[in-house]
């Protein structure tokens, strides 16, 4: 087994040996359902999961950093990073292992929202393609948020600090694309700049995937975001692991 797999396996198991996984799953599943039904899932009288997916960015802004904050902060505070990084594993392998474990965990959490799919199918005849792209967009967004959380976890030994910083970073990415923000910005910024800010926002790309548009620019946006933050985490850890 390669070092990447070993780190991945340990990290993934550790979610379930501590209460982290269970607390996260209960809260996430509760709110993903609650928000959907509260925002008039029945009143719209449409058998689709649009409402469900539209809530995901807001939920993930808070919940994903909470799962990612411990990735490195804990390791550095306790000192087990000295054990991990004196084993035959490179920093990049370790970062990727931890990132993928957290990502898989979120994917599992999303998979557990399957009753929503069943409900929609029971009530009507939804477009399966839209559900698939909706989940795809959500998974990509989760990956982006985890990579951001991973980075902020690597820069601080304090989990609270890394949590707050990554919530802020994720929130900026989401809210920069909200129509209200863009309207406000257009009152004093040139329109070219406003649309540039809009296209840099995660929200814009998430919505377009969620609408069923599978465009290269949206995928590359998420992939680049993930690669960029992962690379930044590796560099910062290489520099500061022993401090």
């Amino acid at each position, binding site marked *: *087994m390669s*070092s990447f*797999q*070993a*780190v991945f*396996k*340990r990290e993934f*198991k*550790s979610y379930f*040996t*501590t209460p982290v996984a269970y607390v996260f799953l209960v809260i996430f599943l509760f709110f993903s359902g609650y928000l959907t039904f509260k925002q008039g899932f029945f009143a719209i009288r449409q058998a689709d999961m649009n409402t469900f997916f539209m809530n995901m960015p807001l939920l993930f802004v808070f919940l994903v950093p909470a799962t990612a904050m411990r990735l490195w902060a804990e390791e550095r505070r*306790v*000192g*087990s990073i*000295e*054990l991990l*990084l*004196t*084993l*035959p*594993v*490179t920093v990049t392998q370790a970062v990727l292992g931890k990132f993928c474990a957290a990502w898989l965990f979120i994917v599992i959490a999303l998979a557990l929202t399957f009753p929503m799919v069943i409900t929609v199918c029971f009530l009507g005849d939804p477009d399966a393609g839209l559900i698939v792209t909706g989940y795809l967009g959500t998974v990509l967004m989760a990956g982006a948020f985890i990579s951001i959380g991973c980075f902020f976890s690597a820069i601080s030994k304090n989990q609270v600090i890394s949590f707050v910083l990554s919530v802020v970073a994720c929130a900026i990415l989401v809210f920069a694309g909200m129509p209200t923000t863009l309207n406000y910005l257009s009152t004093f910024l040139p329109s070219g700049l406003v649309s540039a800010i809009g296209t840099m926002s995660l929200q814009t790309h998430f919505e377009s995937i969620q609408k069923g548009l599978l465009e290269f620019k949206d995928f590359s946006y998420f992939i680049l975001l993930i690669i960029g933050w992962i690379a930044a985490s590796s560099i910062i850890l290489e520099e500061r*692991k*022993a401090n």
Partner: protein
Amino acid sequence: MIEINGLRRSFGPVLAVNDVSFDVKKGEVLGFLGPNGAGKSTVMKMLTCFLKPDSGTASVCGYDILKNPIEVRKSIGYLAENVALYSEMAVDDFLNFICDIRGLHGKARRLAIDRVISMCSIESVFHQTIETLSKGYRRRVGLAQSLIHDPDVLILDEPTDGLDPLQKHEVRELINSMSKDKSIIISTHILDEVDAVCDRVIIMAKGKIMANSTPAKLKEEHNGDMDSAFRTITTR
């Protein structure tokens, strides 16, 4: 097996390790002595590729610590000073994780785990969670972790710290029994230990090597007293 050449490392304005060079041959047990903050742990961290030196280099089993850190780590077993293990894991899970990362599988893994369990006498806590263990047991699990792949080079940072006298004795016996075909560096504050296990002693103070000799010779030069040898050399 270990060659260190002019290692230097500073933390901010503090020069922690200043131009340290020495080598350790196969079958040799090197005792690393010095007051707190002398730079012993920093040298060990550089050898295990956890810290990068500012200048100078070292090689372990022929692999350079800067050019080939992964090979170096493969050939080293390292017990850190404040063994922080993954406290939420059980001992068996933890050792299995180490085997995963060290690439030990199947029969080799079973043999390796059985071997270190009896070597470090941790049978009784094998299924316990690490955070519930006493300091002595944690240290022994840390030692087991460092021995699991039967490394050519062992680097042990205060291996007997926190152990009771009986366990201290066991660990010393263990080190003696392994010393024939390995190179071992141990750092310690216990001068008796040096007498009991080490073939050679290096005394460090303020980041520099102050003495590099054998325990017998040091004693001879200081009227048979390790304590006074240590004091005179480190306060020089």
